[in-house]
């Protein structure tokens, strides 16, 4: 085997090694992403249990006519309540 062939084979081996390392790192990355996804979905499923139980899709609900107005009205009521509480606190001796 000539020196040139030896060099070429060594280069191939090095390239293979580099690719293997790259694959391993991508695989590890995939596992981490999947772990995070699983955790987020599971956590969300824990949190929305009662919404799912009652078949409540809040996004769909809030898209219905009047929902935005109702929300606006509630925010208005909340703002007024806050102001009243603040005023009460200020007036408190």
């Amino acid at each position, binding site marked *: 085997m000539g020196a040139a062939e030896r060099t070429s084979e060594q280069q191939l081996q090095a390239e293979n090694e580099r690719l*293997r390392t790259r*694959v*391993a790192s991508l*695989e590890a990355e*995939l*596992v981490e992403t*999947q*772990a995070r*996804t*699983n955790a987020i*979905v*599971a956590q*969300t*499923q*824990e949190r*929305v*249990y009662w*919404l*799912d*139980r009652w*078949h409540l899709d809040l996004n769909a609900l809030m898209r219905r006519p009047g929902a935005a107005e109702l929300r606006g009205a509630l925010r208005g009521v909340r703002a007024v309540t806050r102001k009243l509480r603040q005023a009460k606190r200020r007036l408190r001796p």
Partner: protein
Amino acid sequence: MPSMSVVIPVKDGERYLEELLDALAREGVDEVLVIDSGSRDRSLQIVRAAGVEPLEIDPAEFGHGRTRNLGAQRTSGELICFLTQDATPVPGWATAYREAFALDEHVGAAYGPHLPRPDTSPMIARELTEFFAGFAAGVQRQGDATFLSNVNACYARACWEEIRFREIAYSEDQAFGADMLQDGWIKVYQPSAAVLHAHDYGALEFMRRYFDEYRGLHESTGHVEPFGMLATARQVRAAVAGDRRWASEQGLSGTEQASLTARSAVHHGGRRVFSALGSRAEHLPAPVRGRLSLEGRDDRTATGATGESAAAPGLSPDLAPDAAPGVSPVPPSTHIAPKRDHDDYQDVARFWREGAAPLLDPVPGMAERERLRLALVIPSFRRGSGGHNTLLQIFSRLERRGHLCSVWLYDFTGQHLAEWPAVIRADIREFFAPIEGPVYKGFADWQGADVAIATGWQTVHPTLMLDQCRARAYIVNDHEPEFYAASTEREMAEDTYRHDLHCIAASPWLRDLLIERYAASADAFQLGVDHSLYQPRPVTRRKDTVIYYARHVTPRRAVPVGLMALSELHRRRPDLRIVLFGDEGKLESPFPYEHLGVLTPPQLATLYSEATVGLCLSLTNFSLMPKEMLACGLPCVELADVSAESIFGSDGPLELATLDPRAIADALERLLDDPEHWEQRSREGIEFVASHTWEHATDEVEAGLRHALREREQSE
């Protein structure tokens, strides 16, 4: 520009006929055909005055589908429009239809809205307007609404020639709509192709008309109008409120609105009742049907009160063969419309059509990786499902070992149709094991996996079609083809072992069967026992009690044989206390017994701790129950020569008997009569199952999953 013919069936239609023919002249259609079925008013005169020569037919020959087919045959336009005698096209109607057919070469039919006339009652006006407002303008394909109305519709001749109207009593248009979409034609809703049309009958006539309409709808599509007192009250209240709102918008006075409210309540209430009756007309006596029908139609008469809509059901005269004397004629057939959009085993059909999804290329060392991405595909479940308990006991432990686990429910039976994923996950955690990972319903969010794991036979074909997998495995709890007699299900269950899934079987017996019978690649695992629960409880052990797992809804439990054995035992020992459990149904038997129904695991542990002998039979794979009995120190009788020997050996802690009532009774008696023998079996049982833990089962399943990945590496 395509030529256009218009066909109008007429009977006593003088009221709007002149207006209609004038409108058609204005629209510039190429051909008008009026088919009269015995008018006794001025209809024929009006038609002839408009320069149209009517085609007169015998009223008895009229049929909605048949007469319209005749009209299409007798005309020549590339487009065939159908109008009723009281539907007047608005300006631009013909042009609008021509535009609809220019949208796509596959447009087979188009229809336009029905507008109320100025004198139409508010109930009908509102209903018409809101009904057509519900359709989006444009094309409708297979899977969309099949609605089509011959009050105002237009057909491509090519489509009519292929589909033709069915000869049914009513709703031939609706049937055509369904048939054409099924055959790949396109339908168009064209809002500009409107007609003025409204039936304004008296209250009772309306109700009888609804009876006819829903009867026809039922006959053509199978629709049954739901009816419930509360629901009806709610619907009528909503409809009356809608009418009042409409009347208010139209500027009706307070008195007019009050009068409308009463009419509206009668109208909508009557409609609900009569439409429900109409769609169940076949359950009513013929004379009652005749009375309720506006057309006086029952199954034996075809005398139309209005002529236009009367039709004889069943075979048309030209289709009914003349039967020779002594030869029974074939009875009239019933057309059954499609009622759902899928086959029973649609995923199996898809798999047979498309095959398995290709697996990802293996990655060197993937079988030995510490954390695997595992996706468990499970079938529908109930509280107490034994197979699911096994799967999830193991899967939750794999999760605790660091593997990334997700559960995918394949709801083949539709049992979980109303449940959303978070509820399914909570049920799995409550019924079986506290998994931490996510639960998905269906595969819409499929993300790929190192190993996709099929479980029940129904899950195998969908699992084979999941992509982005490195390997697939199959946890086999039992030889499921044996659950069925010769059947489609049996064949499909057998098929699941022939697709190169690496099997992980729930006993050595089952593993060997899969290898020998199906040449499958297979490992085995031993079912585990929850020793924290199943251990001798602090209760007094009785000396006179045989308990029997008599789950008669599961045929593989050989309950008739078990009962015969207990009958024999009772004959020999009348004082023996016999307790049956495992099923809510109470069995009839020739011996007295105590019934316990379905018990919770803690209750089972107590029962096993106080009984003298247990009886649990399985004609297929060994189940968990005998192990749990043994763990509580309860000797148990099982069937010999099936699967138990593969776990316990032929002289292990189980008392084995052949499938013979006397042999089983003998085995039970040996344990009842001989205290030393009982002691030995009890002690050996506890010792034997001590090593049968879920942790150990998890080790074996994990090894099986890694084996599946290793096979993939080696196959490349």
